């Protein structure tokens, strides 16, 4: 996971934060301008696809990368967010932005509950428990007619949404903002004492507890944050496609990508999931338009094999070693 760590002091934190937020906003604006110049809606779709994985992978990294608790239930949390947005729309008529806020709340609560129930489990037992959670949630959704059950639910989107050029551009910008905020939150956690505590838990939970780290509380913070951000990643999904069914919302590819992307980019660092999501997300999109989307998980599998063999600490770890 992470290599030698240098304390971030007050003197260095300010300029670093400024550089991060300035850089993130600069890249975001550049992406919007470039895609508008290209003027093809596919660009927005591909961008949305990659950015949704930036959010999902960064969220996974908070619990899996920093604390070392591998969550196999990413699809469950993401679907919880997506179906919260659907339920809110149906119940109140409120649309995307309130839906994202509600999704963060519901998925965060789900994360907190999962933490309470499972965090006494460690290693593979915790992972299996999170996988089970996703299966239980899917069964509930399939049998919940209010949100469409197994038939799925439709959301009719407006044809125009000024000042945006198209609905695709609007969705892309929403996901871009969510991605920047999520990465910012993950980075803030990493550099905070919570992050340091989570890293201590990952390295040696018993020793962390023995030196005064409130391990259970930190793990609950991590599961809540992880769940909330995964829900945020899922909330725009029904608005983007206009239709959501359980098979799509609980797709295996979300669970696999949420793990594979941080591992390939470098788990335990905020930049790792971003690099992994951009790399794997782009490759999958390229495969989808040139060959078939059926190749997506095949690509992820091969990438994992290659990285486990050549760079087990991911791209970030590889670069750190070479420095």
């Amino acid at each position, binding site marked *: *996971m*992470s*290599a*030698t*760590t*240098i*304390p971030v*002091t007050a003197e260095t934190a300010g300029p670093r934060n400024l550089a991060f937020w300035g850089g993130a906003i600069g890249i975001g604006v550049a992406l919007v301008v470039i895609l508008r110049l290209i003027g093809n809606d596919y660009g927005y779709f591909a961008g949305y696809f990659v950015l949704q994985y930036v959010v999902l992978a960064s969220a996974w990294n908070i619990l899996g990368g920093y604390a070392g608790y591998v969550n196999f239930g990413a699809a469950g949390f993401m679907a919880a967010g997506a179906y919260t947005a659907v339920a809110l729309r149906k119940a109140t008529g409120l649309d995307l932005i309130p839906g994202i806020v509600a999704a963060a709340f519901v998925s965060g609560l789900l994360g907190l509950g999962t933490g309470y129930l499972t965090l006494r489990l460690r290693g593979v037992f915790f992972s299996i428990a999170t996988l089970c959670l996703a299966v239980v949630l899917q069964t509930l959704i399939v049998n919940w007619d209010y949100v469409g059950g197994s038939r799925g639910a439709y959301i009719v989107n407006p044809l125009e949404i000024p000042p945006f050029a198209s609905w695709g551009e609007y969705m892309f910008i929403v996901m871009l903002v969510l991605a920047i905020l999520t990465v910012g939150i993950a980075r803030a956690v990493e550099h905070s*004492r919570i992050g*340091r*505590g989570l*890293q*201590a838990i*990952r*390295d*040696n939970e*018993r*020793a*962390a*507890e*023995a*030196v*005064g*780290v*409130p*391990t*259970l509380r930190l793990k609950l913070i991590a599961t809540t944050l992880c769940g909330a951000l995964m829900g945020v990643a899922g909330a725009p999904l029904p608005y983007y496609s206009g239709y959501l069914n359980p098979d799509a919302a609980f797709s295996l590819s979300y669970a696999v990508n949420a793990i594979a992307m941080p591992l390939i980019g470098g788990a*335990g660092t905020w930049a790792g999931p971003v690099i992994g999501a951009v790399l794997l997300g782009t490759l999958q999109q390229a495969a989808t338009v040139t060959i078939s989307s059926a190749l997506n998980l095949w690509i992820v599998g091969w990438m994992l094999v290659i990285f486990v063999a050549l760079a087990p600490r991911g791209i970030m770890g590889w670069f750190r070693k070479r420095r």
Partner: protein
Amino acid sequence: MSEVLLRAQGVGKRFGGFVALQDVDIELRAGERLGLIGPNGSGKSTFVNCISGDFAQHDGTVTLDGHALAGLKPHRRARLGLARTFQLPQPFASLSVLENVRVPLLFSGDAARATQRGMECLEQVEMAAKAAMLPRELTQVEQRRLELARALALNPRVLIADEAMAGLSNSEVDQIIELLLRLNAAGTAVIMIEHIMRAVTAFAERLVVFVAGRKIADGEPRAVLGMQEVEDAYLGRQ
């Protein structure tokens, strides 16, 4: 005589049908140096784990400075000033030496001075020069020193050194004894659990002996080591 800082009364612990500790009474006074010895499996580490909160004892009470520790998790006990080291060094492997020591400080209410205090703790164990290194780059004795520095960061009133000298050479044992004596001189009461008799006799001013989960002796080291029951326990002539 100084006041009792740590008091264990009637402590008992069972694992299923196996009685690991039975009716153990131990008192530790402020600034005292206590040696805890006994054959393998006599319950020394189980006792330490009951004190530190890793295990919940089935019987008895443990108090620190008059406050009952029952139900308190290890991190709460650590913040009350009860620090421990482990039989095998357990550093945070991905964090630098300094970060290892900063972790307890970040959660101690002194987070703003964590780096400065961390360096002070490392200086106390003569590890300041290794602050940027990773634990895997340290020698065995340096890893022991790191464990002690991390415990020191808790500003402990009681330090439990659980076989802190296991696997060290004679000169390294002397280094750790000297270090523990320095920490004790600064006011920390120390419980040393050790199999190396030379270390125990050089360090402890009082000795407690466990055999089969029971305390069989408690007193001045020379007198305790001269007791027939202690000799029998070690030589298996019970």
